[in-house]
């Protein structure tokens, strides 16, 4: 789940292997943890292997939103499996002509897990709490105020038009939270959350597992599922298994029903197992090389382009991802609103690997191989740069391939594997050359979040006023066509300046076994559990 790009995987850690993995931390009473030895058959529990133990289940306090905490809450709007916007808790919505006021009509007869009714006033309270305490409130846009005009009508007023808001709503970031319960429980709300989702909280074993039970009141399932009522399964158990081998083995052994984000090199193996169902969806983000654009070397666009031109994306995808991905040359993934085929084609033309051109660019910048050691040099110094990589196997593999590719252009690449925390820290302090990074978000507004000047401070340190203008306009423009046009222009600038090197889009592979009716909404990246039944 890459719902919040700023937190995608930052908990990924020192050890890609298994740090947060594992099962229970309780010692004595294991009674509440359903027996999973026979894949939960006896207790009617769906067991999901999950990578990330969310920091908190309180939607307004979390910096990470995924199935693990997001399924507790039901969004106001959603998309169906073809990408069409469909009602969620809001029957319908309307945007005022000036684009500054969004009006939602809340469905009747909906209750939070506590039994508290969901009214327009309650949703307003939820918005207010979000705007007050959420560490990531910046992402919801310039909201001025929220008001409930009657039982069912909710109005969200913006100071400026903010088109990406539709995707904020769909992402679940502003789904209604039971603020009444939150007030009663105070800090304890995170341990006893209440929303309107199909599952409700049962038990948590930090670092090990999260157990949910079905919401018996639930009857507001989305249009595209057969079962709009309560789930068929009684419980959903997320087991936090960080280590790839561990989760693979657990799955193969049959102790897990749903293996999300299957390690690329294991997909073929799983496909050959009987009874295993594989689903693939394209990720809503890309992996890229981030340059330090303020670095003495990479402030020169020729060097950035030289690097970009020495990269061959096919082996990256084929070897590092075992083919489960797609090379990407332009800034946006095809799954993101704002993606343009024209841009992608142009980018492909500009940046398909060309070592000769790369060498030429280096030579133009004064870098040539004078001592015939295969590495270009200037003033007696070889061109040696460091790339920061987090310890995900696919990343470290990719880095090694990049290393050999850049070498052919005469660039010596040193790989440093560090924790994401440290990498981000070094990036924001500009003490880096290059880093292998990623983002994930539903809307082209991601470019604003990465490149707009205040954001660029903590990222690639690349600023272009024209780009800022375009990215601001993109937020305010109300028609989709207009927005697409604006983002095309913005992407053109990025292509020419090459402040980064987009590499690939992941194909997210989910393997299931011993269950039926499991789905994955590729537009929202949420699991569809409504129709899931366990095999007998």
């Amino acid at each position, binding site marked *: 789940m890459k719902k919040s790009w700023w937190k995608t995987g930052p908990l990924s850690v020192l050890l890609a292997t298994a740090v947060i993995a594992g099962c229970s931390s309780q010692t004595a009473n294991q009674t509440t943890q359903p027996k999973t030895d026979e894949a939960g058959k006896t207790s009617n529990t769906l067991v999901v292997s999950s990578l990330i133990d969310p920091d908190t289940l309180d939607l307004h306090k979390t910096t990470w939103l995924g199935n693990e905490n997001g399924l507790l809450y039901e969004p106001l709007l959603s998309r169906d499996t073809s990408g069409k916007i469909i009602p969620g808790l809001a029957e319908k919505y309307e945007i005022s002509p000036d684009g500054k006021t969004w009006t939602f009509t809340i469905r009747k007869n909906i209750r939070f897990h506590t039994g508290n009714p969901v009214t327009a006033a309650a949703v307003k309270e939820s918005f207010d709490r979000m705007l007050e305490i959420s560490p990531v409130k910046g992402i919801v846009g310039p909201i001025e105020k929220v008001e409930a005009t009657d039982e069912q009508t909710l109005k969200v007023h913006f100071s400026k038009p903010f088109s990406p808001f539709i995707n904020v709503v769909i992402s679940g970031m502003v789904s209604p939270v039971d603020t009444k319960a939150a007030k009663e429980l105070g800090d304890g709300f995170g341990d006893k959350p209440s929303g309107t989702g199909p599952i409700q909280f049962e038990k948590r074993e930090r670092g090990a597992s999260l157990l949910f039970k079905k919401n018996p009141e639930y009857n507001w399932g989305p249009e595209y599922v057969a079962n709009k009522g309560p789930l068929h399964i009684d419980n959903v158990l997320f*087991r936090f298994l960080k280590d790839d081998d561990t989760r693979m083995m657990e799955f193969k052994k049959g*102790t897990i029903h749903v293996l999300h984000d299957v390690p690329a090199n294991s997909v073929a193996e799983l496909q050959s197992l009987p009874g295993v169902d594989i689903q693939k969806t394209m990720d809503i983000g890309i992996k890229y090389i981030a340059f330090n654009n303020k670095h003495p070397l990479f402030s020169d666009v020729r060097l950035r382009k030289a690097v970009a031109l020495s990269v061959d994306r096919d082996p990256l995808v084929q070897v590092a991802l075992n083919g489960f991905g797609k090379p990407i040359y332009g800034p946006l993934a095809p799954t993101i609103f704002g993606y343009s085929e024209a841009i992608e084609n142009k980018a492909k033309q500009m940046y398909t690997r060309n070592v000769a051109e790369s060498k030429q660019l280096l030579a133009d910048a004064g870098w040539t191989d004078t001592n015939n050691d295969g590495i270009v040099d200037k003033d007696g110094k070889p061109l040696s740069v460091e790339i920061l990589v987090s310890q995900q196997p696919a990343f470290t593999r990719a880095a090694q391939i990049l290393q050999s590719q850049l070498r052919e252009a005469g660039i010596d690449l040193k790989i440093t594997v560090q924790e994401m925390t440290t990498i981000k820290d070094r990036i*924001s302090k500009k003490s880096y050359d290059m880093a292998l990074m990623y983002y994930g978000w539903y809307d082209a507004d991601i470019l604003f979040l990465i490149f707009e000047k205040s954001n660029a401070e903590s990222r690639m340190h690349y600023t272009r006023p024209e780009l800022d203008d375009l990215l601001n306009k993109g937020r305010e423009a109300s028609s989709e066509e207009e927005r697409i046009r604006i983002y095309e222009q913005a992407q053109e600038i990025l292509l020419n300046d090459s402040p980064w090197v987009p590499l690939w889009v992941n194909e997210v592979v989910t393997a299931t076994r011993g269950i039926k009716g499991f789905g994955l909404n590729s537009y929202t990246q949420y699991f569809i559990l409504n129709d899931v039944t366990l095999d007998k």
Partner: protein
Amino acid sequence: MRRYVVKRLISLLGTLLGVSVLIFLMVHLIPGDPATQILGQFATPEAISQMRTALGLDQPLWQQYVGFLGRLLTGDLGTSLFTGESVWEQIVTRFPITLQLAIFSVLIAAIFGILLGTIAAVKQNTLVDRFVVLLSLVGISAPGFWIALFLIWIFAYKLALFPISGYEGVHSLLLPAITLGMAEAGMIARMTRASMLEVIKQDYMRTAEAKGASLVSLIFSHGLPNAIIPVVTMIGLQFGSLMAGAVVVETVFSLQGIGSLAIEAISKRDMPTVQGMVFFMALIFALTNLIVDLIYSRIDPRIHFD
């Protein structure tokens, strides 16, 4: 005896004070700003500076240390920056696993190590002896993470006898305990053998034999109690360091013990947790060593502390 314990406790306090300084400095030298880390990178600068104030990070270093020490003295190990759980709570949930793992592996290691070491000593210079000596060296030399891998592969996956990862009851701890126990068993076997060889030469062994004691009684009743004294010390020290976290093994087996908690906290830059955890480990380690010394005086009547 009491005076000895008091003396030891006082010197322990000195060490712990040093440890607290060391940990504090180290944790503060670790790159990465906890405030940004908590708030996520999308937080506004004001929010970050507010958070820094709230965390006391804007104070001079010595003041922060004094605060840390003061809280330690009142038994407050701090609170996680991320989960809001107190470090103590985290320890309470995680420590039992580590403790069980430590006990389990020390038991395995002690049983096998002492048995093999004794057999080797009794059969000195025979094939059995050479085999035990080599086996124990292999146990010491083989990397734990490597052994763990194959134990998992064979016993948990291929034969499906144990859970692959995580804690599902005491039997989940068998493979990790074996992994940990291998090296320890090797060390224990070597020490038992050496110690037993020394003991066998002693006059009192001949006395016992002259009394008509059987071989079994000679070894287990007369020899072992003497030979085991240095071994017990070693076992105790191992136990101490195990309780302080079998980092690699907990990681490989995805066990939620305090070793993996500490590493996790380091990687998340959860400074209070790191500080509290490491301090706790040092405390446990030191206390076990003290207890080992006291046990030592119980099993060797010649030793008296006053």
